[in-house]
């Protein structure tokens, strides 16, 4: 199961001289997306969004992000499929994928980790600050 971060201090106000990380949030729930976008931006991260798998894959192909936040239940190509394709693609398999979903069953988590996801976050069990902290960790900040 995904470990919750314990000793990471919330980072705010990142120094302006550094290059900002690009995070792609693949989330069909617009409201949740907006909350995360606001949280990440105020943490000094560039945020882009995709509301379904197809759009997401297109955007990644155009401009590869530094980190991907991936919801599993998406219209059309779902999160499992997106993850599978990314990890099979030599160009993108190095990009860390944090799965962020409300599917909480062991078998879902197991299969996602097997497919190559770096983290598994259950939305209902995390706060936006906690998610931000994890993201910042992957951005190397």
């Amino acid at each position: 199961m995904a470990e919750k971060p314990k000793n990471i201090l919330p980072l705010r106000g990142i120094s302006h001289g550094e290059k900002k990380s690009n995070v792609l949030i693949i989330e069909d729930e617009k409201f949740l997306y907006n909350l995360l976008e606001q949280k990440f931006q105020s943490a000094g991260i560039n945020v882009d969004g995709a509301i379904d798998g197809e759009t997401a894959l297109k955007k990644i192909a155009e401009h590869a992000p530094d980190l991907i936040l991936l919801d599993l239940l998406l219209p059309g190509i779902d999160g499992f499929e997106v993850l599978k394709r990314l990890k099979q693609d030599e160009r993108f398999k190095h990009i860390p994928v944090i799965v962020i979903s409300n599917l909480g069953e062991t078998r879902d988590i197991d299969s996602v980790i097997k497919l190559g996801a770096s983290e598994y976050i259950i939305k209902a069990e995390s706060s936006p600050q906690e998610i931000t902290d994890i993201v910042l960790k992957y951005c190397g900040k």
Partner: protein
Amino acid sequence: MTASFFVIFLLTAVFGIYSLVTTQRALRETVGRTSIFLARNQIERIDRDIFLKIEDIQLYSKDEILQKTLLESNRAFDQLGSEYIDEKDSDWVSAPKDVITPFMKELIENEVSDALREEFISFWERKYGSRAYGEAFVTNKYGANIAQTGKTSDYYQADEKWWQTAKEKGFSVGNIEYDESAGVWTMPFGVRIDDREGNFIGVIKAIPYIKELVGEVELTTHRYQTTELKLLTVSGQLIYSSRAFKMLDDVSGENFFKQIGAGTEGFFISQQGGREVLFSYARSDGFRNFAGLNWILLIGQDTSEVFSTVYTLRDTLISVMALLLGLVGFLTLVLGRTFSNPIKKLTKGAENISMGNLDVQIQIESKDEMGKLAFAFNEMTSRLKKSYENLEEQVKKRTEELNNRVLELDKTAKLLVRRDFELLQANETLQKIDEAKSRFVSIAAHQIRTPISAIKWTIHMIMDNDFGKIPKAAKSALEIAAVSVDRLVELIGRLLNVASIEEGRFVYNFSEIAIEDVCKRVFTESIDSAKRRGVSLQIFLPPNPLPPIWADFDNLLIVVQNLVDNALRYTPRNGSVEIIVALDSQIQGLARVSVKDNGMGIPKRQEGLVGQKFFRGDNVVREQISGTGLGLYIISKILEKHDTKLEFESEEGKGSTFFFTLQFIKK
């Protein structure tokens, strides 16, 4: 039949004879022993009586007058010398037999002779009306007569053997003699007289009647009519017999005397003038310092009387045997004729049938069981014949029917194949429905979680001032909202678990694990939560690592985590919760995991409900402590899979201990 009869006959006879011989021997032995006992008893009584008589005389010898007189006499004789005695003796002997000289008279009528008469004669006459002693007299230490109850044959006695023996040995018993004057048989006793210092001062002679000594024998109750008693000297002279006898009659030539063994006692059977007599004997062996007189006491009893029980038994046995043998013989003859012949006929009939001849009929005219059997046999044969005739026709008919059946079966089989196919399809549909259902639960949980996530995230962001600074009051209100949302999330999570358990979709991965690891992990993960609640959380592990167990690590984690969560939740601030891992104290080979709190406990009347879905203690509900009531249910289900169960001890207001045991892997 004849052989078996003979065997039975022989066995009965052998058994009869054997039991007869054994019983007879045993009984004879018993009777013989009893008889010996009687003989021994009698001879001992005689010995004792002789001893007591001698002792009586010894007792009398201490008489004061007697002693005084003897001392005086001895002193006088010390001066007189042997010439005086010789002179007196020759005077005494030369006097005619029936003449009593003045000197003799003096000795008969002095003080001592009066005492002797009183002691040995008058006393008995007065008391019993008959005499026990013929006479008595006393001599001084020189053998001279000093007092006598009647005239003695000699004056001087020191030359007599009995006198010398009495002086030497203390007493002497003389030979049996006939007292002509009294017409009785006597046996004299001589007893030495000592003064108080033990010096020899004289001898007393008393002559008791024999019948007085052996008379007691007669008193013996006669057990059998034919009982006879004989008292014999060692050389075979008769001293006493319960039948008419002649004193000192020599019976050493008789059969019974010759058969007496060398031992001290015994019994034997002897022919006595056409009668068979069982004799038992016992030899005298004295009494105290009296060595006895070598006498033999013999008791004879006719065997016809003694062994009458044995003979009755023998006669009965013989009669019973004869009766039995007769009966066996009769049965063999009669039953043989009644049974053997018809059985032979039946056997032959059966043989015929087995060879295929079904026209057999047996002729037995009797009306008993044999007749019935023969009738049944004949009936059976004719039925057999009929059914045999029917059989072929039946086979033909059945074959036809079977052919029809096969056709029907063929149709049914085809139908079944179709049904099977339909069932398969139905099953697939059901499986699909099942999968859909499971997927539905999963997705439903997801769908509920999504809006909750939105609420939770919003609350947190407002609290984090992401939408601008908010007042403190708002923040604390939001904190409560956040906790409620977390509870909602937890509830959904558990509902999902319950659904999985009930659908059997809960996955178990058993492996060899250390139970300590599970508990340590829960401890580490719960320490923060405990701190937040202000409850002290401690873990106690055994000093040495426990053996491994076979369990599902993740699911046990859920169990222990749930127990700790519950304990923390229901324990007030400043309370304590302990996780204890130990060997079970009662049963070997078990690990025991306990989670102990000092919280509010479970009300006694509700203890039975623990582990039911949605159970929560009344007191907990009153105190408005959040909880789903599903935790213990999930725990119970998981522990069930581990072949164990959740147990607890609780006291309302004092706390609870929840525990379970797990078996170590057997090596």
